[in-house]
């Protein structure tokens, strides 16, 4: 019956880890309100997490929008409702695909970069060095990165969604010959600010916070070896992605009320 024991041990380790994650989050939130405000570091992180993700987000947004345009058109054509393509593309992107796909892409690109950076700092004793200089590593290293991730996510999601709508337009109007005005007006008339757009931003903010916290936590707790850093980076992507998808369900269910 070894497997029962192992399962129990794994469950306990999971709860343990979750607890430590909670404590880390509390430390990070506390660090947010403590001086000094690390503006320079925050702006640097905006660059690393936001600007460097710009290309991948816009290109993927365009691609997803175009796919939605194609698939949407094919399905709607069966019901003679192709004029609603704008609504289909827009709503799909705003409610789900925009924030979720952006968060997944950001976790993969920016999240793993952050974890690797912090993990390497652990391995080279830089965090211990900071502690010995009476500088809190959570405040100095983790806080600006997590804060930047939260700030960047809604912006990236908005860019993704906008490029997606444009992609749908390219396919629907450019390729399939729909009326541009019909596309845009069905989009505008079926999207409600509170339900759809606001929900989109809220999701992006929550995902940004999750990704920021998970990426910095994993880097912070990584084993001080190159294998450890690699494992931590993988964990960020895996755990981050699963968490995003699960939390997505929760938000969708609650917000839709």
């Amino acid at each position, binding site marked *: 019956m070894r497997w029962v024991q192992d399962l129990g041990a794994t469950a306990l380790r999971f709860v343990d880890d979750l607890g430590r994650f909670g404590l880390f989050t509390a430390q990070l939130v506390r660090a947010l309100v403590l001086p000094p405000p690390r503006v*320079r570091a925050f*702006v*640097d992180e*905006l*660059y690393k997490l*936001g*600007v460097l993700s*710009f290309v991948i987000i816009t290109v993927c947004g365009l691609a997803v929008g175009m796919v939605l345009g194609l698939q949407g058109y094919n399905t709607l054509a069966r*019901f*003679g*409702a192709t*004029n*609603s393509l704008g*609504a289909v593309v*827009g709503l799909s992107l*705003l409610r789900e695909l925009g924030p979720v796909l952006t968060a997944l892409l950001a976790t993969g690109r920016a999240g793993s970069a952050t974890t690797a950076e912090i993990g390497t700092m652990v391995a080279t004793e830089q965090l211990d060095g900071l502690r010995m200089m009476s500088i809190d590593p959570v405040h100095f290293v983790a806080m600006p990165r997590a804060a930047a991730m939260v700030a*960047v996510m*809604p*912006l*990236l999601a*908005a*860019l993704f*969604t*906008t490029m997606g*709508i444009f992609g749908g337009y390219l396919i629907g109007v450019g390729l399939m010959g729909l009326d541009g*005005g*019909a596309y845009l*007006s*069905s*989009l*505008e*008339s*079926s*999207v*409600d*600010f509170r339900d*759809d*757009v*606001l929900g*989109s*931003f809220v999701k992006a903010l929550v995902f940004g916070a999750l990704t920021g916290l998970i990426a910095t936590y994993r880097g912070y707790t990584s084993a001080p070896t190159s294998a450890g850093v690699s494992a931590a980076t993988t964990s960020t992507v895996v755990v981050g992605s699963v968490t995003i998808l699960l939390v997505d369900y929760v938000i969708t269910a609650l917000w839709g009320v």
Partner: protein
Amino acid sequence: MTRAPLRDFLVGCFLLLGIAAMAYLSMRVGGLAGGPPGGFTVFATFDEIGGLKPRAPVVVSGVKVGQVKTIGLDKTYRARVEFDLMPTVALPVDTTASIVTSGVLGDRYVQLQLGGDPETLKNGEDLTFTESAVILERLIGKFVHNVGVDKGAKGEEKD
């Protein structure tokens, strides 16, 4: 502290683009901003609006001139709809508003058929002539019912 002016510039550009995208989605797509500036409002009462939603387009001769702002019930439980219209539109007081469907299964929108009266509607006035929405199910139901009645009648004649 290491200064990096190029980085800061790129971050600024990124923030601008991101905020612009958010603004576009909020206002153009989501309709956060109110009606067009200088636009005016008219009302119309219908027996049945059949799935008309706020922000549905208001159309004259196929061109969008405004959108549905709010939908409510009046004292006699008929549907009272408020339209936001562009300032350049002048509607005669005998204009008819009908609720039509875009395609067979499409969204509902409001079509305005202009009348001939020289007097035009002012801000906040009501349209007199309205045509309610046609509900597909009732049409089919009526058809089926009529067919049944015919058959019944024929059956009686034979007997």
